[in-house]
C-alpha cells in the first residue's frame, strides 16, 4: 500500500510530467487559456492515460518479449486505435461524458505525455496495479499543471504586460516559476 502511495505522489508532484519531464508542453502552452477548458483537458488526459497504462502493460507482458523492436510502433498504434474505440463507445453510451471530454480525446492520443507514460511505466517494470496508480498520478499531475497555468494566464489578461513579453515568452517564464515551485516537493523523498 505504502509503495503504491509513493508511486502516486511521485508522479503527481515530484516528477510532474509537465513541469519536470516536459511532456505535454504543447497543450500546456497552447490551449490552456480558460480554467474550465483546461480542467476538462486534464480529465480527458487522465482517462486516456488509464487506458494507455492497461494497453502498455498487456503489450509489454504478452507480446513484446517475442519482438522487442516493435515496442514503439505497437505502442503508438494500439494506444491510438484503442482510444478511438473507447471514444466511439462513450459517444454511444454516455453522450454527457462525450461532450465533457469530446474533442480532446483524439488530440491527446498523439501527445508526448501519453507515449511517455507507456514508456516510463514499462521501463520501470510496474505491474498492472502499479501502472494504473502511476497513470492516475501522472494524469492528476498534468491536470494540476494545466489548471494552475490557466488560472495564472486568466489573471494575467487583466494586467498591464509589455507587448514584447506577450504570448509564448510569458507562458514559458510563468512555467519556469511553476516548475521552480514544484521542485520544492523533491524534499519529500529525501526525508524518507
Amino acid at each position: 500500500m505504502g509503495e503504491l502511495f509513493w508511486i502516486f505522489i511521485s508522479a503527481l508532484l515530484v516528477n510532474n510530467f509537465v513541469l519536470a519531464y516536459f511532456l505535454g508542453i504543447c497543450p500546456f502552452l497552447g490551449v490552456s487559456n480558460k480554467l474550465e477548458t483546461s480542467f476538462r483537458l486534464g480529465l480527458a488526459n487522465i482517462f486516456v492515460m488509464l487506458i494507455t497504462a492497461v494497453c502498455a502493460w498487456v503489450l509489454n507482458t504478452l507480446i513484446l518479449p517475442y519482438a522487442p523492436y516493435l515496442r514503439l510502433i505497437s505502442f503508438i498504434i494500439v494506444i491510438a486505435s484503442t482510444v478511438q474505440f473507447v471514444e466511439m463507445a462513450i459517444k454511444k453510451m454516455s453522450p454527457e461524458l462525450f461532450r465533457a471530454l469530446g474533442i480532446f480525446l483524439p488530440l491527446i492520443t498523439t501527445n508526448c505525455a501519453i507515449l511517455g507514460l507507456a514508456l516510463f511505466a514499462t521501463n520501470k517494470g510496474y505491474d498492472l496495479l502499479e501502472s494504473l496508480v502511476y497513470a492516475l498520478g501522472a494524469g492528476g499531475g498534468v491536470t494540476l499543471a494545466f489548471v494552475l497555468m490557466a488560472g495564472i494566464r486568466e489573471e494575467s489578461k487583466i494586467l498591464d504586460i509589455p507587448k514584447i513579453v506577450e504570448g509564448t515568452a510569458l507562458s514559458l517564464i510563468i512555467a519556469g516559476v511553476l516548475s521552480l515551485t514544484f521542485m520544492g516537493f523533491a524534499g519529500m523523498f529525501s526525508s524518507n
Partner: protein
Amino acid sequence: MQASQTSDRHRIAEEFLKGLWNDNPVFVMVLGMCPVLAVSNTAINSLAMGLSTMFVLVFSSLLVSTFRKLIPSQVRITTFIIIIATFVTLVDMLLAAHFPFIHKELGAFISLIVVNCVILGRQEAFSSKNAPKYALADALGVSAGFVFALFCLGSIREILGNGTFFNLPLFGANFEPWVIMILPPGGFFSLGFLLLLFNRIKQKRDAAKSQLKAAASWKQNRYTTEYVTEKDEVDL
C-alpha cells in the same frame, strides 16, 4: 530550360532557408517543445538529440514524399506515424549499439521523437504535397533550424549551469555555477528569454521596415506631385 533550372534551384534554396530562420520550428513556430526543453541541459545532449531528430525527419520526409500518391488520404496520419516510428526505432537501436553513453543520457526521449510535432507537421504540411527534392530541402532546412535552436539552448544552459562547454571548464575555480539552469526550471527560463530576444529582433526589424516604407512612400508622393505639376504646366 536554363531559366527553369535556375528557378528550380532557387526554390530549393528558398525551402531550405525558410526552415532555418524565418520559420524556425522552435523560435518562431514554437513546436516540438518537449525534447527542446527536456534534453537541452548540456551541449552534447542537445546536439545528439538534434541530429537524431534530423535523421528521422529527413528520411521520413523523403519516404513520405516518394510515396505521396500511393498513401490514401484517410489513413495518411497513421501511415506517417508508422513511417516515423520505424526510423525512430532505427535511431534508438543505432545509438544503443554505437553510443551507449548518449543513449543512457537521453533515455526515453529518443523514443519520444515519434511524437515530436515538428516531424509530423512537416509530413502533413509539406512532404505529402511536394516532390522529393523539395521535401528533402525543406526537411534539411527545418531540422537544421531545430538543431541550431537546440544547440543554442544547450550551450547556454551548460555554460551557465555547469561552467563548462562540451565538458571543458570555461571559467576559473571561483565561478559559482547557476545550478538552476541545468534543472527543469532553467529550461523554461532560458527558452523564455531566448524567445524574448527573438521578439526584440523582430520588433526592431519591423520598425525599421515600416520606417523605410514611410520614407519610400514620401519620396514617391513627392515625385508624383512634381510630375503632376510639371504636366499641369505643360497643359497650361
